[in-house]
């Protein structure tokens, strides 16, 4: 498709000019190819990098005697027991077979009014503190750098003496996503201290007799 430029004919019909060659190049194939390449690169580029959730587990130490284990206040302990199929059970305190009666398992789920409500209720003070801090930053009442804010929130969590200490325990039927979900809930509810630990034999029994 060469460009054809119609030349104006001399009005007085003078000399015939040599037909001028057009200087324009047809760019359509080039544009086609570029379109193709751009589409290709756009689709193959990994734009959104993977997000990660960081979890630090307590160090395993074989020499650690049971008596050296950190003592946790029973009234602050919240045990969350996971078992397959979107079921969450929780109980307060410690389940010690030597000290009956055993605490009762309460059934919950992953919905907004499920375990989150329980966690928020118990962690109200710390949650409000952190949420207010974040809101102040968002609305521009307080201008601080990201790292400063992170540190401040970390300090809030460190100083917290009232919020629950959550122990997450999962049985064999649990799916990986349930674990991720519950750790995520911890992040959403700003829980200061939580750990993923193993089920004790008593708790396995308790799960068997748990309300369906």
């Amino acid at each position, binding site marked *: 498709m060469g*460009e054809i430029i119609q030349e104006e004919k001399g009005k007085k019909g003078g000399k015939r000019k040599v037909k001028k060659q057009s200087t324009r190049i047809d760019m359509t194939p080039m544009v086609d190819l570029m379109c193709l390449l*751009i589409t290709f690169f756009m689709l193959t580029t*990994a734009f959104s990098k993977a997000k990660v*959730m*960081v979890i630090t587990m307590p160090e395993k130490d074989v020499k650690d005697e049971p008596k050296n284990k950190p003592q946790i206040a029973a009234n602050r302990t919240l045990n969350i027991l996971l078992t397959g199929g979107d079921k969450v059970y929780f109980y307060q305190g410690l389940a010690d077979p030597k000290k009956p009666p055993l605490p009762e398992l309460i059934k919950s789920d992953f919905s907004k009014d499920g375990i989150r409500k329980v966690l928020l209720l118990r962690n109200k003070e710390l949650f409000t503190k952190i949420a207010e801090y974040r809101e102040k930053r968002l609305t521009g009442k307080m201008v601080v750098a990201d790292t400063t804010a992170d540190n401040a929130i970390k300090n809030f969590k460190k100083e917290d003496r009232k919020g629950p200490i959550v122990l997450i325990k999962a049985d*064999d039927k649990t799916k990986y996503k349930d674990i991720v979900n519950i*750790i*995520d809930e911890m992040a959403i509810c700003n829980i200061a201290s939580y750990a993923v630990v193993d089920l004790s034999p008593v708790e396995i029994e308790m799960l068997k007799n748990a309300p369906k």
Partner: protein
Amino acid sequence: MPKIKAPARSPHIDMTPMVDLFSLLLTFFMLTATFRPQEAAPITTPSSVSEKQAPDNDLMTIFISKDGKVFFNIDNGKDTSTHFRMKLLEKIGEQYKITFTPKELEKFGTMSSFGMPIKDIKSWLNEGDAKIREKLQVGIPMDSTDNQLAWWVRLARLTNVSAEVALKGDAETNYTVVKKVMDLLQDNKVNKFNLVTNLSKDEVLLKDVPK
């Protein structure tokens, strides 16, 4: 009054600005493109609210597929001269008394995730047929008698001391497998895990706090 004749318009559009823009975009995409590495198994990660980005380099990733197969990947490091993958394969070879040719080492250096018993690595590296290569990916064995994954992790930790560990598990994987891998990692003094997740916003506002 003479009629005003509208000048004949050329039916052609000037494409130069368009071409300019396209070349600009093309250059941008070509330079920024980092190709998605081919993964050994399709994995759908669970979602979380975490917005932290996975590090680009110095990352050791353990993939756990839906059926409990385990795959492993480590990058070559930020500095191209470090060749962590080649070094790692050499070390593993020493451990299992397998010698790899320089060509095999180099090929391993350019690959990404893998998951097969160590004895199959050689045939995987030398196999040209993609279908057979895929069939060889049966997962890294981690039985208590011959825990090869533990050796991969241990030697990878020694090869690249600053490597962080990422776990990329399928949402439907059984927790027992994940726990086994986590225990194994903890035995190798890895206590910080990066769980790879999808971002899904979920926020609780101040007014949502139950009274």
